[in-house]
């Protein structure tokens, strides 16, 4: 049975395989070569094999681990915040949306704006001298927190990311919530179950798979964050907002250590692969 389809599956997979091969085949081979070579911009065409040296350099680099730690924290916190907010909004606003569906359109605007531009927008609106937020804070309470100072910058980028991507989680939960069969709710209501209890005992468990997926997608996107942080504060005061992507980008372009940045990217890919495979395995077990 399995064998019978082997050829057919391969044929069906061929467009994707050929496309990937054509566009990424050469780049991947070259990147792997660079990852195991001493490479700079001058020696692009003649990389010199250096074994695992780049990997040793990367793992000995304190900044690499700081970047990994930043991305891990950033991804986790934003994923949790976005999902909590998104879930609350979706459940609370669902009756409103049932009557006026255009409400959704307004709430998803942030995720349609380019993250790079969102970063630039925040650069304007948080500016102490030209931005509306400090302006209002100064005129109402006479002072304003320094949003981008070393002390606050982490919170600021977390909030900026959360506010842009909560709509994504909100959309997921809204759909899951709306697809819960109305009969289940009605049955519960007839039994006299109160709304709060209805949510925790019946609706929430039904939305658990969605929660899992939402947290996962938002974690991945948070972990690899680049555009908005980069345009807002770059690598941050004292490198405090260096995410994994920013680390690789700066090692690559700014410091010209191509081999080292490729090694970091390879490590990232492999670890992401492992995490993703485990997550999928868990998901399949859970759904069984």
């Amino acid at each position, binding site marked *: 049975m399995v064998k019978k389809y082997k050829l057919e599956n391969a044929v069906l997979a061929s467009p994707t395989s050929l496309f990937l091969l054509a566009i990424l085949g050469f780049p991947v081979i070259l990147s792997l070569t660079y990852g195991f070579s001493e490479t700079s911009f*001058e020696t692009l065409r003649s990389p010199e094999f250096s074994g695992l040296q780049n990997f040793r350099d990367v793992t000995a680099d304190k900044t690499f681990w700081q970047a990994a730690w930043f991305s891990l924290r950033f991804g986790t916190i934003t994923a949790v915040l976005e999902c909590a907010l998104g879930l609350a909004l979706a459940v609370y606003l669902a009756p409103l949306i049932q009557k006026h569906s255009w409400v959704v359109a307004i709430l998803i605007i942030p995720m349609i704006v380019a993250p790079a531009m969102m970063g630039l927008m925040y650069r304007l609106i948080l*500016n102490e*001298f*030209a931005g509306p937020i400090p302006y209002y804070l100064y005129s109402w309470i006479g002072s304003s927190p320094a949003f981008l100072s070393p002390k606050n910058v982490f919170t600021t980028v977390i909030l900026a990311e959360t506010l842009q991507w909560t709509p994504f989680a909100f959309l997921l939960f809204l759909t899951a919530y709306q697809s819960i069969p109305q009969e289940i709710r009605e049955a519960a209501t007839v039994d006299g179950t109160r709304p709060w209890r209805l949510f925790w005992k019946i609706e929430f468990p039904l939305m658990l798979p969605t929660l899992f997926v939402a947290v996962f997608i938002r974690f991945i996107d948070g972990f690899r964050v680049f555009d908005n942080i980069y345009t807002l504060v*770059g*690598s941050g*005061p004292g*490198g405090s907002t260096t995410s994994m992507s920013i680390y690789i980008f700066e090692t690559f372009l700014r*410091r010209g250590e191509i081999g080292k940045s490729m090694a970091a990217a390879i490590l990232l890919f492999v670890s992401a692969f492992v995490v993703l495979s485990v997550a999928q395995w868990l998901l399949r077990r859970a759904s069984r």
Partner: protein
Amino acid sequence: MKLTAKLLGVTALSSLLTGAVHAEVTVLGWPGGPEETALRAAAEMYNARAEVADDDKVELLFTSRDGFFDKLQVDLAAGSTAFDANLLATYSIGKYAPFLEPIPLSDEAGAVFGDTVLKTMQFEGAQYGVPTDLSLHFLYYRTDLIDALMADDAAKAKYTEIAQEHLGEALAPKSPEDWSWLDFVANALYFSQSVNPDSPTRYGTVIQAKNLLFNMMVFHSWPRSYGADWMDADGNITVDSEAYRTALSMANKLFELGATPPDSTSYEYAEANAAYSSGQVAAMVQWNAAANDLTGAQPDTGTFAPPSGPEGRFTHIHGLGLGLNAAATNKDGAIAFLQWLSTEEAAIAYAKAGGAPGLASATAAKLADDRPDLVQSGDYASTYGFVMNGGTSANALSVYEAQAKEFTGFWAGTQDLDTALGNTTAAMTELLK
């Protein structure tokens, strides 16, 4: 009649063909500022010259400042033929030299620009570019605030009191032209509401301290006036010196005491200018290029060279220029244009159109009516200008990067001074060996 028609046909055909092989000279310039306007004017003038063949007409290419050097790096390294000549900066010549070719300048270039300025476009003794603009730093200060301070005895006493308390010296207010860095700091503290609640401005100064290499250039005049250098004559890295320690600690005091906006560890050029323009900052050190914007927003603005230190008064200088892409498709045409750009005629046209070339005094004198500011900046550059030892080496850009990361980390409070200087020394030893 027939002959004319034939000739026309041939001409049309040949122009079609030459058009197809991309014969003009493409020049990649520094986008978005007076440099662009000036280069446009110069190119127009050049293209109008009779001896310039159609195939050698100059076409300009301007992209974005955002990521400009990153993209240029990739373009050059990959052997791009999208442009024949491209922007150069003093600190990046060493990095780009492997992908460029040295160029011959016009005979009069030496007299027009002077040796100091020509040197900003040299690497290992070879001339890689024709200088177009010279960048240095000015001290910008609010004359109205200083005048008011000088006229008020109570305020003067307060100033001295603040200096005594925070700097351990009973300094009296002075004219900014006589400032040392200590006076600069005292003034910054006096005009900060966190130190002096009666201050007319919220902050005494603004230091753009985003982790960005250009911000290090603005800072460097400070340690230099205390005798700092990157390395000594034997090539030993000397960044961990009293000079750097003093300047870094003095600047840090401004961050600690709130004399520069608390956000300023995320500021670059635009934000720092916005702060000054808003009227909430009393004095700052900034690029000469900001002169128009800043005096436009605050008309009572005086400019002078940066403050002095025990070793004298200094301003970090670097030049912008244009060099020849080694992969250029029309090298001869590009060389002809660059050569013309190094003539007096071209330099004067460039300056009149708003550029800021570093000119020798004889040439600058011819522009005294149109561009008196060029006389001022040319004067500062030749009197106070410096380039760090190693500032044009292949890895100069990366050295500034490393310093930016470590020094801003110190000001941001994420590491102490010893760690910052230790890391900088290690990085620079690796980069400048």
